[in-house]
């Protein structure tokens, strides 16, 4: 189902943030809005990675991955207790 959304973790290249953005979260939001009007950020990450997680369709994820400053758009994985 092309419309089915999944959670993706989006890795951003912070050094590539355009100077026009005052704060990196604005840049993240702008990048997300460029591929989806409805997608919301689940988390923004500051320390573990530079980026955010969100729900996207596969097409949106691929489109986002092609945007400048995007390092990768990784499908969320499930972990289990040991």
């Amino acid at each position: 189902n092309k419309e089915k959304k999944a959670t993706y973790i989006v890795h951003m290249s912070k050094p590539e943030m355009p100077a026009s953005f005052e704060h990196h979260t604005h840049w993240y939001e702008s990048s997300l809005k460029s591929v989806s009007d409805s997608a919301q950020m689940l988390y923004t990450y500051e320390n573990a990675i530079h980026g955010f997680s969100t729900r996207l369709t596969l097409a949106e994820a691929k489109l986002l991955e092609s945007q400048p400053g995007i390092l990768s758009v990784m499908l969320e994985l499930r972990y289990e207790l040991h």
Partner: protein
Amino acid sequence: TTRTPEFLGLDKSADLLPQSDSVSEVIIGVLDTGVWPESKSFLDTGFGPVPSSWKGECESGTNFTTKNCNRKLIGARFFARGYEATLGPVDESKESKSPRDDDGHGTHTSSTAGGSSVADASLFGYAAGTARGMAARARVAVYKVCWVGGCFSSDILAAMDKAIDDGVNVLSMSLGGSMSYYYRDSVAIGAFAAMEKGIFVSCSAGNAGPSSYSLSNVAPWITTVGAGTLDRDFPAFVSLGNGKNYSGVSLYKGDAILPGKLLPFVYAGNASNATNGNLCMMGTLIPEQVAGKIVLCDRGVNPRVQKGAVVKAAGGIGMVLSNTDANGEELVADAHLLPATAVGKKGGDEIKNYLFSDPKPTATILFEGTKVGIQPSPVVAAFSSRGPNSITPDILKPDMIAPGVNILAGWVGSAGPTGLATDGRRVEFNIISGTSMSCPHVSGLAALIKAAHPDWSPAAIKSALMTTAYVTYKNGNKLQDVATGKDSTPFDHGAGHVDPVSALNPGLVYDLTADDYLNFLCALNYSATEITSLARRKFTCDASKKYSVTDLNYPSFAVNFGSGGADAVIKHSRTLTNVGAPGTYKVLITLQSPGVKVAVEPETLSFRQANEKKSYTVTFTGSSMPADTNSFGRIEWSNGKQIVGSPIAVSWT
């Protein structure tokens, strides 16, 4: 943990251990199922103010308020946005949308790592004693990332993100996912950032043993912990109608005591119409054929304790749980709902022969309580995941083993000891097994080392734990693997079993910086994009530089010869840093294989001052050997008092 401090030598070495004041400055962050704050393991009696560096919080939610934190449990957060986005809202009738642990796993792991001392702890009288975390005076912060439906990477990453910002010193993560490259693995990615901030990250190796290549969490900046047994057991014998007895283990204690006589005995596979009836899966046993009988079930597929519940529901009055090839002679004790015992494969096979040959088989189970001093111990647990490392075969994993079988630690008030919904019993402590249990042991020990050596990097702490780990018993015999009954290898136990008292004073360490790991990623030919994802900054591999995985200053050696291996030469470079007294160390190489020659240059290293660094090179020269051959050995540097040991694993593929 009523036994592990003694087993690890922590009880006899108070003068060698860091002072309580310095340990209480160390904060252990645990990513798991949350915490049961009312557990006595989180009492803060005698604790001073929270370290001034701490920026964490105690978040409120279902049945959890800021008042649930104290000077011991200094932080508690929960992360469910990723979970809810995929599986829908948390069902608050089943689990708390808060840091509260409704499962037990997180309370067990966090109390193992840093729980306060609790006298008179036991599970139904089993394993009685004083329970305590390995770093009983350390502070604990919990990050709930696992829910009924699983643990999602967006939540795990968010928790690691916060833990780094909060100011934890150690991160304990008893969870894992499928094998993937480091830049795709959220735990590896988050752990890299943590490592850069000086945070020691300990992860469980996984419970997919004894299969080879079954490890999780193999990034070199993570400390990967396998599981071994203690010298403690809970014997429960099976006595058959033919007069033979078989040893097993059990944590059963209840009202439904078996009468002191032989009872009808049946094999589950013969009391079921299902093809897998032997496994005692839900709804597969025929009540008329098991009622009033002891039932033998084979281990595998469904949880061990569930098999007991299935037998009980079908009217059985006892259970013998038999291992199969997958588990060998490993005996894991469970707090079954009915009188039950677990037996090894050999005994199980003999019992089955009796069941198949005697027209009216009978049996009973005799419970013996707790026994300590069991030898040999430790032995590598069959379930403990094994190398080689499938992502980077040139890095030996697991790093070490620690106690992970039949561990008693804190439990929740919302679930019984089996974790089954039908288990209405409530206990303050539970006994469970897994690399989930060994990981927090190492986390707590790392906290002790951090307290003793606040300036040591995570790599130095790992090195100290690895190079002082032991691979032989006191009688000189090699550590055993319960899965085979034979000597275990570095693919099973890594550098060996942790010896924390020695680790506090290792003499020399193999240190590493974040840039060293980035050079390692260059050696793996990771792209600039992939490295930037991990490094969170531009890092360009120098095209003119020759990078090699064998140059990573790792405290162990994995050597891989290609097809044949004839005349292949592989060099490993290492640098040792003196963290002890001045002295001269001489090398001893132990590796007896016709397939490889090992040479170390130089063979002597002299250190005149603290933090002095000396490098050496190990040259492995291969001969032709059949594919899938492995040889194992050690390189040990000794000054006559201390031994700085590293395992060697040589493979021909």
